[in-house]
């Protein structure tokens, strides 16, 4: 029987998800024994035309990491969708929009302006030469992929079968997912191949939480050293554990938590959470200034809440494109009435 064919592809990502495949270490040899890697531009020499030549559904499974930021990525994932029986959104950017998705607080124009224009102090560009999708040079025409205004998650562009969360996904989850797919006993379409509990549920610091947490002052992790056994939230440091899926390590405790850093939320929401930011507003505002709340003036409550710097950026750090509101409304982007 021919081996199942596997493809890996990257879109708007940092390369960490590719690294996460390499991090399978010797396990990658087991994978290679079981499957044929037919496309992996980051690591092996394949051309887009190799994929175009394949028959529909010829690839058993395509692992696609990164968000969709430009035309080239969109075309490639559409092509891979045609050629693959299963598509897996691999990593936070692909699943939720990820860090590149934070660009949805801006649009193409403002991003170009801060990269090539007057808002970039280290760039001297008096002629205001900006990237063009087509430009004529003596040798002919050069093209660049069109840069979209809005970053999208993979499932906002193509149909996705499964999700593997994480920035980047831990090797043990990747191996498990490959095992499940090769076994042929496929879970329900749309399943996130990771545990369903929240990180707090699994966190060894959870027991240190007082029965009622009340935050008097918001502290940033760069300003304090938190006792390695104490819950970050109880210490006034924002931790996304209450609204984030567990599973970033096999043992349960969060990867960042074990390095004495609060959870940033890269595993995305557990199944019952619809909008990470909404849930975090709820969780955090409930405990900030809880003690003595009946005597707190409106001004003091506002001052305390305002200690949370950049709330949307913090709460939607990995999930802005898949949040309920998806992006910032900007005058040159919006059109018409609702």
């Amino acid at each position, binding site marked *: 029987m021919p081996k199942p064919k596997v493809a890996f592809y990257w879109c708007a990502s940092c390369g960490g998800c590719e690294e996460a495949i390499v991090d399978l270490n010797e396990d990658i040899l087991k994978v290679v024994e079981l499957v044929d890697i037919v496309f992996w531009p980051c690591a092996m020499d394949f051309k887009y035309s190799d994929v175009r030549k394949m028959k529909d559904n010829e690839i058993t499974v395509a692992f696609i990491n990164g968000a969709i930021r430009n035309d080239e990525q969109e075309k490639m994932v559409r092509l891979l969708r045609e050629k693959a029986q299963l598509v897996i959104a691999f990593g936070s950017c692909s699943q939720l929009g990820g860090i590149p998705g934070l660009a949805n*607080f801006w649009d193409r124009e403002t991003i170009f302006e801060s990269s090539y224009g007057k808002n970039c102090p280290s760039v001297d560009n008096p002629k205001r030469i900006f990237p063009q999708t087509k430009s004529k040079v003596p040798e002919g025409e050069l093209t660049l992929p069109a840069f979209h205004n809005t970053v999208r998650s993979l499932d906002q562009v193509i149909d996705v079968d499964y999700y593997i969360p994480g920035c980047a996904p831990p090797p043990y989850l990747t191996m498990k997912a490959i095992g499940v797919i090769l076994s042929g006993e496929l879970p329900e379409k749309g399943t996130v191949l990771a545990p369903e509990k929240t990180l707090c549920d699994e966190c060894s610091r959870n027991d240190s939480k007082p029965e009622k947490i009340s935050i008097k002052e918001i502290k940033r992790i760069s300003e304090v050293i938190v006792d390695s056994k104490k819950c970050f939230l109880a210490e006034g440091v924002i931790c996304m554990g209450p609204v984030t899926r567990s599973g970033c390590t096999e043992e349960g405790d969060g990867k960042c938590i074990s390095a004495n850093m609060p959870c940033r939320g890269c595993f995305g929401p557990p199944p019952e959470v619809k909008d990470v930011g*909404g849930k975090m507003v*709820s969780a955090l505002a409930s405990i900030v200034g809880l003690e003595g709340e*009946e005597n707190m003036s409106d001004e003091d409550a506002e001052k*305390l809440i305002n200690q949370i710097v950049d709330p949307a950026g913090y709460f939607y750090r990995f999930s802005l494109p898949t949040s309920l509101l998806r992006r910032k409304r*900007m005058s040159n982007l919006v059109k018409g009435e609702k």
Partner: protein
Amino acid sequence: MNTKAIIFCCNWSVYPGLLLSEDTTVEPDPEYKIIVNMCSGRLQPDLILEALKDSAWGVMIAACPPEECEHDGNYKAKRRVLLLKRVLEQFGIEPQRLKLEWIDKGESVKFKKAISDFIDELKELGPIKKLEIN
């Protein structure tokens, strides 16, 4: 759709009074819809976001005034609204579209006035602009 404002109000305080004061022979005002919840402190922000995403021009939460909520949920609601307003602003949505009003039991007249004032404010702002994803 004519609905401009979604009004969340509590099942145990202001809503029963409002029901009693309503003239059932008059068609309800299509410009707002009331959603009854169990306490302002139980209202989840995702519901507010959902309303703003879908069609509402604004959302008002009618909560019991300080010291009047049996569960102290109103203080929580206050802080959530403060934080959510800042989040909305980052999404380019005017924070005035979210409003918390202290309304006590039996203050139906005040409640109705607050709703109509809010709708006037929303008309000044106009609808939330529709997103063009490209």
